């Protein structure tokens, strides 16, 4: 028995190592994209990074720091060395360090993403189960069409419609803004509801379609038919037998969606003035604050890759049918 356990642990270790190694070329590629992002801007990258009003001393110092008189590979290695020690440069606006700026913005983005995920699960799982268990009824058609509408609706338009309804027609929720949950938890919730609904609705559409499809497949399986033949009540068959087994692809989809949320927040945060990484990126683009743009793009891509890796691992661990090879 122990022999099997230790062999399983070794397998898992090897799998983890191979997955981590497969990330190396992707992370190398994303770092190249972020590096060239500033180099491709027409003109001097030092001026792009410091702004037009930078003094000669600062320009000379940054030129030396970035090794701009050296060949490109040396420049890249110098830049990478700074990034790996958390030195993302300074924002052109206000001169603050970029890395703490990014970390501060990650908190609100994480809270909004989590809330959106909860909203999507609360809507999508019951709707998907009802659609599957009542296949080809009005409930199924209604839920499926609603999901298709959710997928077709640009999130910023849904956000605007929610503002029109709940902030202007029935003024019960604020249209935009943010307050830390540590300072004013109720105020935070009131600011959170509309952006979380906006972001959650698009996620709910995809999750509902996946829940319906997976439940339909599981409900057709032999063990569900056996459970029904044994006289197990329908409700119990759905929740204990079918839904438990349908969770695996849904968990995978949720992992993928967590990654997609990092993209989705860009527009939602802009509509609701939510001070997360998405709004920071958009503001930085318009201010031509390239150190912030570069840092935000790199950090978001790395997070996206890590979340996808985590999803892969969770999928492998919770479904014994998926091999570690």
């Amino acid at each position, binding site marked *: 028995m122990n022999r099997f356990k230790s062999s399983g642990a070794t397998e898992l270790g090897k799998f983890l190592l191979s997955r981590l190694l497969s990330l190396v*070329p*992707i992370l190398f*590629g*994303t770092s*190249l*994209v972020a590096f060239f*992002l500033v180099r*491709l*801007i027409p003109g001097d990258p030092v001026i792009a990074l410091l702004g037009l009003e930078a003094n000669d001393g600062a320009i000379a110092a940054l030129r030396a720091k970035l090794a701009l008189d050296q060949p490109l590979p040396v420049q890249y290695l110098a830049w990478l060395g700074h990034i790996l020690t958390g030195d993302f440069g300074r924002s052109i606006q206000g001169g603050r360090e970029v890395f703490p700026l990014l970390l501060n913005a990650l908190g609100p983005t994480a809270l909004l993403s989590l809330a959106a995920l909860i909203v999507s699960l609360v809507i999508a799982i019951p709707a998907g189960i009802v659609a599957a268990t009542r296949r080809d009824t009005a409930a199924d058609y209604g839920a499926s069409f609603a999901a*298709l*509408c959710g*997928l*077709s*609706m*640009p999130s*910023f*338009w849904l956000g*605007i*419609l929610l*503002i*029109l309804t709940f902030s*202007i027609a029935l003024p019960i929720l604020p*249209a935009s803004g943010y307050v830390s949950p540590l300072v004013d938890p109720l105020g935070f919730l009131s600011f959170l509801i509309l952006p979380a609904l906006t972001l959650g609705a698009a996620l709910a559409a995809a999750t509902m379609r996946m829940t319906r499809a997976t439940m339909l497949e599981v409900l057709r399986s032999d063990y569900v038919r056996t459970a029904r033949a044994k006289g197990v009540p329908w409700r119990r068959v759905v929740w204990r037998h079918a839904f438990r087994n349908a969770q695996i692809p849904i968990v995978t989809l949720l992992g993928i969606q967590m*990654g*997609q949320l*990092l*993209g*989705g927040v*860009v*527009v939602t945060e*802009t*509509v609701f003035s939510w001070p997360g990484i998405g709004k920071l*990126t*958009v503001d930085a*683009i*318009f201010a031509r604050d390239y150190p912030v*743009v570069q840092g935000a*793009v790199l950090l*978001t*891509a790395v997070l*996206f*890759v890590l979340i996808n890796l985590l999803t892969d691992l969770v999928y492998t661990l919770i479904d014994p049918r998926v091999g570690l090879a």
Partner: protein
Amino acid sequence: MSAVAPARPGSAFLSGILRDRRAALGCALVLLACLAALAAPLIAPFDPNDPDFAAILSPPSAVHLFGTDDLGRDTFSRVVYGARVSLFVGILSVAGALVAGTALGLIAGAFGELTDRLIMRVMDVIFAFPSILLALAITAVLGPSLSNAVLAIAVVNLPVFARIARAQTLVVRRLDFVEAQRALGFGPWTILFTTIMPNILAPIIVQGSLLFAAAIITESYLSFLGLGAQPPTPTWGNMLKNAIGFLDLAPWLAWFPGAAIFLTVLGFNLFGDALRDIFDPRNT
């Protein structure tokens, strides 16, 4: 057993569309958007950029069906002309991604492991970015404009086509008729583009129809953020960006461009779903 003549693909496709009510609705919505784009000068009652300072922020009426904006411009005319930008960006970006992605996927699948690895690792890197973020980064570097929005959307969709084309090429290149061409002495490029390519196109075209909807949404995001076509060119996205400032005074400015994006994307999604079902061999 009686012999049955195989149905022509075109007629099977048409009957498939007509049988499925969702597909018919999708087709109708897509045709409506195409009609608006093609016949905009005939349909729009006003010049989309013509200001009328006597009719600023007028609500919908018989004269101005969708009301007017803060410069008195007719919102209906702007929505109709906006269809041109959305469809133009959708067609050009998806066609660009389809052609370049298919070519890269064909080359990756047919020319040995080193080429395959090199091309697919680059595709993996593009895939490693959330698509809207990469599109934003590209337009931020190149500058906001319609052509750069097209380029950005094409680049983020490139890996989708490359992956499908590569996977299909790996299967088709080992089939007997390809081996026969090789034995007859045809060169690798001839085999690739005259024999393999026509046999891998069906799933790529289906994916293209589904990505069209995504491309229209991405264009609207870029325009909404101010990184697409620049004013005064009317786009549905930049009309919504403008509407944000007048939500309490003129909510109609937000209703109609948003509804135009929603209905067009819904049409393409319904149409793409139907296309996938028709081409899915499990449904035959």
